[in-house]
């Protein structure tokens, strides 16, 4: 690992606030949703019974939409940079995917290809979360507001898409949590998003070499 001193501000205050709001909303939505689907009375009881849990699920869904939407409108530059980063896949990203960033114990890797602010796995996760969120949002509203007017087949389709997308999102978020908070190679990322936003420059120089080169050039 290169010997670089200093700290990098990876995630600004508003980004971290949005991430916290989205995370808390996601946990509440996931819990209540699982409670509805498998009819788990214990989960509904936490939220004051099934009727209240249903209300909590719907209005937390509104927070789940409004939180990131406000962030995007108030921080359009950050959002644009994020979209630009995750939509740019270079040869290094494909090379990173071939070796899975060196995260898999049975894949021996000498050197992991240099990455942007987000590595190829994070870029894919970003797209999956954007698409998944759009799907649960778009299928959630007909189930709430138009359940008595849309065709039954369409409503059943919405329920299926909503459920399976939520399951995929929950699994993705669990994987994201494991890599960002538990895995010894990458758990240093945790505090940069959940606490003060800073990460050691030395770690950034190693994990996000391309981005760090830009930072050094501009500072």
């Amino acid at each position: 690992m290169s010997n670089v001193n200093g700290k990098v501000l990876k995630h600004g205050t508003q980004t971290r606030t949005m991430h916290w709001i989205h995370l808390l909303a996601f946990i509440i939505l996931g819990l209540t949703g699982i409670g509805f689907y498998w009819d788990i009375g214990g989960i509904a009881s936490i939220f004051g019974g099934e009727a209240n849990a249903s209300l909590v699920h719907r209005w937390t869904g509104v927070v789940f939409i409004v939180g990131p939407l406000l962030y995007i409108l108030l921080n359009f530059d950050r959002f644009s940079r994020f979209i630009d980063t995750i939509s740019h896949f270079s040869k290094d990203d494909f090379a990173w995917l071939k070796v899975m960033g060196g995260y898999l114990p049975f894949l021996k890797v000498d050197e992991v290809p240099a990455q942007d602010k987000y590595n190829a796995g994070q870029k894919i996760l970003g797209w999956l979360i954007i698409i998944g969120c759009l799907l649960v949002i778009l299928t959630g509203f007909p189930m709430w507001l138009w359940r008595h007017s849309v065709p039954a087949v369409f409503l059943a389709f919405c329920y299926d898409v909503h459920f399976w997308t939520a399951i995929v999102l929950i699994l993705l978020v669990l994987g994201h949590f494991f890599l960002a908070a538990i895995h010894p190679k990458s758990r240093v990322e945790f505090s940069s998003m959940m606490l003060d936003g800073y990460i050691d420059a030395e770690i950034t120089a190693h994990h996000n070499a391309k981005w760090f080169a830009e930072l050094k050039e501009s500072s």
Partner: protein
Amino acid sequence: MKLFHENEGITRRQFFKGAGMLTVAAVISGIFAKFGFDVFAASDDYITQRVAGLYTLDESMAIRKSHENPEIIQIYKDFLSPGKLVCVSPKAHHLLHTKYGQDIPGFIAELKNPHYVPEAEPAANEETSAEEPAA
């Protein structure tokens, strides 16, 4: 300790990517919402027309209340409460009321044997007369 920060502002490419992403999301949501609102409006329109149709049909009927129907009144006078008009006579109760639960075995026995007499028929003098209400 040296602190590294990202540059503020965005390039033209970043702007177009961010704006494009927002536009695509807005267009998809808009199309979906348009479909939903159209279906909702169509459903609302159908319900309004259906209600209007039912009221129109009802208003065009010569007899609009079952207890004022001369044929029903005649059936009560001739058969269900012979000679008088008793709204819930024992025979009307026995023939017209739904059987369920513990009544079902007796009902099946009655169907098999027309002369079967049910054990617990309400007595005639316990019923309320439409013409002579109980004091």
